[in-house]
């Protein structure tokens, strides 16, 4: 591991240099009493001690709505793909969200690679930051194995009081170092770094009450459990949970014609497996017509399907869904009920 | 021509449904009336028993065209009832959004409803092929008015963030700066509009009447101040019932309103006549350039007064934005402590004075509500103007068609907002 350090007072200069040197720098900024990832114009806007953001940083890699291509049929058929190659730095991503980006990278690159995501991703530099303490009552990252990042970042900052220890994850990360006063971490700094991380692991409670390796098996057993029917009594089919989830990426594709009716665009937009007609077909057939079927499907994606396919859970334990669900349907709580 | 009967149902290019009825017998006008035939909507009853926080959103739905005016006056009435004095920031934001509505409404009226008359076409649509640049300019100006409302209140038709004692969301400085830039740029469009209006012939007709408006102290008044009449008397907002009376006319779902004389005028021209000295210098210059001098007794000059006000609102809007930018715009607590009692709000909607008068119980539930709308106040004056105008037209040997047309132009000049006019609560029936 390549470990560097930067003094806290030098961080602002680093960020401002990034703002000058790249097309766009995105970071956590306050929104009243919450936080959001947003493009910044100066390092002063950053709130690096944020707890969690309303939406995960996925919106900068897979935007809520994205034009896939535009077309014009006026004079033959012209089709122009929309690939966003903005040189973008996302600053200050916590380890749970980093893990979700890793997962998204696998999914989007697999089979027919999604050029729109990947173009954006290739041009995005990711600077993570450690979060110190649990960000909310609902977070259970430690149980899902995402507390300590395993790659997925170009740089990762750990707060050591007067300075940040900086892990360099990629060659691209190394290039970023030119923008600030980084120096090699001394042995003392390294010691403090490891010490901090040991301490951090203690700060985080084990919120899932069993070994999560058992989760896929427990879910399998629960397939026809009453649990799902109980949740059926509460869920609104709103999809707020999937909207805020860093690992949810389902989308709808649709055409929007301009008013000349000969030109327009094909776009995609976040969709949710929790809404009623997500899987509905012509004639009204719907394989997940019941609310409980849809809830189960979401939970199985989070705790089983992806784990079995990629070796990682598609839930990174960020707690956003639990915080955002008005019916108080909380993944952590459901997992715990499986035992 | 000795006998004449004119009936125009559903006068077009009005915000709402209105009709004209004229009867001339042996050269004498025996009947001339502008009726409002919108279905009655009974707002005052619907408001009964509702919580104070519903008053503004509900009364905003009296009229989509002056939604900001209804919202503002409703908030004023509620605040008056509870003894709440809004902060300076709130007042600045309210004035700004009010300017936005004034710009959007006046531009809509001048370009979409009046200009086609003066250019002799039936709507703005043919103008898109003959005067494309003018139409584009009109749309640009109208959009500016709308966007001012959207930045301050969330949207124009039924603003969202305006609340009792403040705002539920305040605009970001960047949004205001962006607006300011557009308002500065709009000066050119407004100047071009002035040039355009110079070329349009306004019918020459005067009839002296009473002009009623808010009374400015230091500012050209839209949402603050007592009331003033051109007849020389003033009165406090809360005392309005001592000075004006609503009456019901069987043919008309809007109530008519009178003060001392049989009729009075409210709106841009009344405001101009009573407060012209407080206009922004740029607006004064426009008035001068267009030959509008106070007192003006030609109702066809209402459109000119509207343009003068549009310029004023744009300039004053820029000044308000500068004031807001110079301070910290922050979310302020909009605490409300309810108490039993009556409150009156009065604002100058684009078409004139608008009253909301509420009585709440101690928990802030509505017991009684009354709304008096500008168009209701103008109806009697329109009737009297028609009465005065018809003989002039008859003497000039105008045919029935032309008389009818001119009367419609007259009605449109008042920009009657008919949706507003039909609502009404408790009425004092005058025998």
């Amino acid at each position: 591991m390549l470990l560097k350090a930067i003094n806290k007072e030098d961080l602002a200069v680093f960020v401002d240099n990034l703002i000058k040197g790249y097309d766009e720098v995105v970071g956590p900024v306050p929104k009243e009493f919450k936080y959001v990832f947003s493009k910044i114009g100066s390092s002063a806007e950053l709130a690096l001690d944020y707890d969690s953001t309303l939406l995960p940083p996925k919106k900068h890699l897979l935007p809520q709505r994205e034009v896939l291509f535009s077309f014009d049929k006026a004079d033959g058929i012209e089709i122009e793909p929309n690939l966003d190659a903005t040189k973008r730095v996302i600053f200050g991503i916590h380890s749970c969200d980093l893990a979700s980006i890793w997962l998204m990278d696998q999914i989007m690159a697999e089979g027919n690679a999604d050029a729109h995501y990947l173009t954006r991703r290739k041009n995005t530099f990711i600077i993570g930051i450690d979060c110190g303490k649990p960000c909310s009552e609902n977070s259970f990252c430690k149980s899902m194995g995402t507390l300590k990042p395993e790659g997925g970042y170009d740089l990762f900052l750990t707060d050591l009081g007067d300075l940040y220890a900086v892990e360099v994850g990629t060659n691209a990360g190394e290039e970023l170092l030119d923008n600030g006063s980084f120096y090699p971490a001394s042995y003392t700094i390294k010691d403090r770094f490891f010490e901090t991380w040991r301490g951090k692991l203690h700060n985080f409670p084990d919120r899932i009450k069993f070994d999560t390796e058992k989760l896929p098996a427990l879910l399998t057993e629960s397939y026809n459990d009453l649990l799902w029917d109980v949740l059926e009594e509460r869920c609104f089919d709103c999809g707020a949970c999937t909207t805020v989830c860093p690992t949810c990426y389902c989308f709808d594709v649709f055409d929007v014609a301009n008013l000349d009716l000969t030109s327009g665009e094909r776009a995609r937009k976040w969709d949710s497996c929790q809404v009623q007609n997500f899987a509905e077909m012509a004639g009204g057939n719907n394989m997940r017509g019941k609310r409980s079927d849809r809830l189960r499907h979401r939970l199985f994606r989070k705790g089983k399907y992806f784990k079995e396919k990629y070796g990682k859970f598609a839930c990174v334990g960020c707690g956003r869904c639990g915080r955002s669900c008005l019916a108080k349907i909380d993944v952590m709580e459901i997992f715990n009920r499986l035992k | 021509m000795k006998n004449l009967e004119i009936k125009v149902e559903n006068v077009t290019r009005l915000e709402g449904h209105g009709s004209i009825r004229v009867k001339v017998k042996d050269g004498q006008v025996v009947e001339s009336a502008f009726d409002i035939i919108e279905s009655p909507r009974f707002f005052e009853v619907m408001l009964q028993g509702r919580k104070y926080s519903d008053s503004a959103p509900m009364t905003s739905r009296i009229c989509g065209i002056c939604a900001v005016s209804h919202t503002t006056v409703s908030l004023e009435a509620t605040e008056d009832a509870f003894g709440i004095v809004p902060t300076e920031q709130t007042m600045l934001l309210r004035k700004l959004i009010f300017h936005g509505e004034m710009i959007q409404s006046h531009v809509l009226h001048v370009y979409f409803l009046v200009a086609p008359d003066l250019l002799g076409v039936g709507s703005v649509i043919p103008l898109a092929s003959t005067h494309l640049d003018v139409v584009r300019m009109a749309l640009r100006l109208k959009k500016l008015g709308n966007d001012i409302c959207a930045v301050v209140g969330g949207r124009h038709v039924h603003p969202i963030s305006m609340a009792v004692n403040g705002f539920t969301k305040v605009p970001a400085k960047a949004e205001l700066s962006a607006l300011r830039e557009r308002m500065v740029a709009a000066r050119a469009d407004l100047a071009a509009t002035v040039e355009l209006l110079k070329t349009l012939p306004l019918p020459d007709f005067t009839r002296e009447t009473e002009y009623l408006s808010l009374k400015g102290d230091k500012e050209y008044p839209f949402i603050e101040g007592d009331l003033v009449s051109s007849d020389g008397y003033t009165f406090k907002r809360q005392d309005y019932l001592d000075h004006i009376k609503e009456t019901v006319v069987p043919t008309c779902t809007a109530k008519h309103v009178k003060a001392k004389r049989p009729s009075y005028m409210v709106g841009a021209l009344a405001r101009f006549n009573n407060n012209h000295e407080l206009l922004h210098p740029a607006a004064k210059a426009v008035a001068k350039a267009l030959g509008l001098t106070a007192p003006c007794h030609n109702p066809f000059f209402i459109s000119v007064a509207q343009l003068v006000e549009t310029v004023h609102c744009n300039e004053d809007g820029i000044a308000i934005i500068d004031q807001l930018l110079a301070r910290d715009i922050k979310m302020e607590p909009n605490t409300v402590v309810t108490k039993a009692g009556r409150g009156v709000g009065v604002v100058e909607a684009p078409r004139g004075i608008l009253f909301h008068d509420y009585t709440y119980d101690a928990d802030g539930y509505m017991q009684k509500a009354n709304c008096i709308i500008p168009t209701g106040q103008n109806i009697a004056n329109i009737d009297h103007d028609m009465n005065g105008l018809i003989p002039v037209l008859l003497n000039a040997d105008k045919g029935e068609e032309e008389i009818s047309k001119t009367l419609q132009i007259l009605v449109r000049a008042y920009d009657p907002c008919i949706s507003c006019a039909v609502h009404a609560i408790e009425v004092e029936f005058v025998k």
Partner: protein
Amino acid sequence: MKPKVAVFALTSCEGCSLQILNLEDHLLDLLGQVELVNFREAMDEKREDYDIAFIDGCATTPHDVEELKKIRAQAKVLIAMGACAVQGGLYAMRNFHDHAKTVETVYGKDMAAHFSHSLPVRPLSHYVKVDHNLYGCPMDKFEFVEVVRSLLLGKAPNIPDYPLCNECRAAENICVFDRGMTCFGPITRAGCGAICPANGKGCEACRGLVSKPFIDSHKKIMKQHGLSVEDLLAQFREYNGYWEETHEKSGN
């Protein structure tokens, strides 16, 4: 040939009609695709040979109903614009008051007879077949464009049928429940961009409910947040009184 379009207003605030004029950036393009033949708020011409009719407002008098039926007979496509037309909207509130008394309160005892012709407030679909709905109070002007565009292309307009929370979270609004307020978002049809929560106010369900709303769960949540049944009903009636009349005869 361009389809001929008419815009009518029954009993309403005419805010929805105004929303069409408020489409400043699209108005000229729209006029390039359709021929506007009847729009009292904007033009003199009143032709009766329209193909597509947009109507704002609800029918509240026999005259309104007659007019509505006439429009239906002529129009190939009839579109309800805004909460009043789609679901009765705000005016349906008055169905909960005694009508004779209402007229009397407003116009006075002596004159009441002249104004007593009003009917209970009903959405357009109560009287005629409605082909498309434009939800909201006022309707969303971009949805209006979507409907026009879809009609021209002969496809179904893309109008959401899932709860507002979805859109609200995607817009990164702070949930108003987190501000200690209440909201109808969980049962209200999305499509407005969650404009009320974005402006610091709870959703008032002006777009009406999703086609399968989970009312019971929502009621529970509203009660948990301290709303009395009366206040909840009063709020609900602001735009959905007619729904209540037709769905929940029993009251709460």
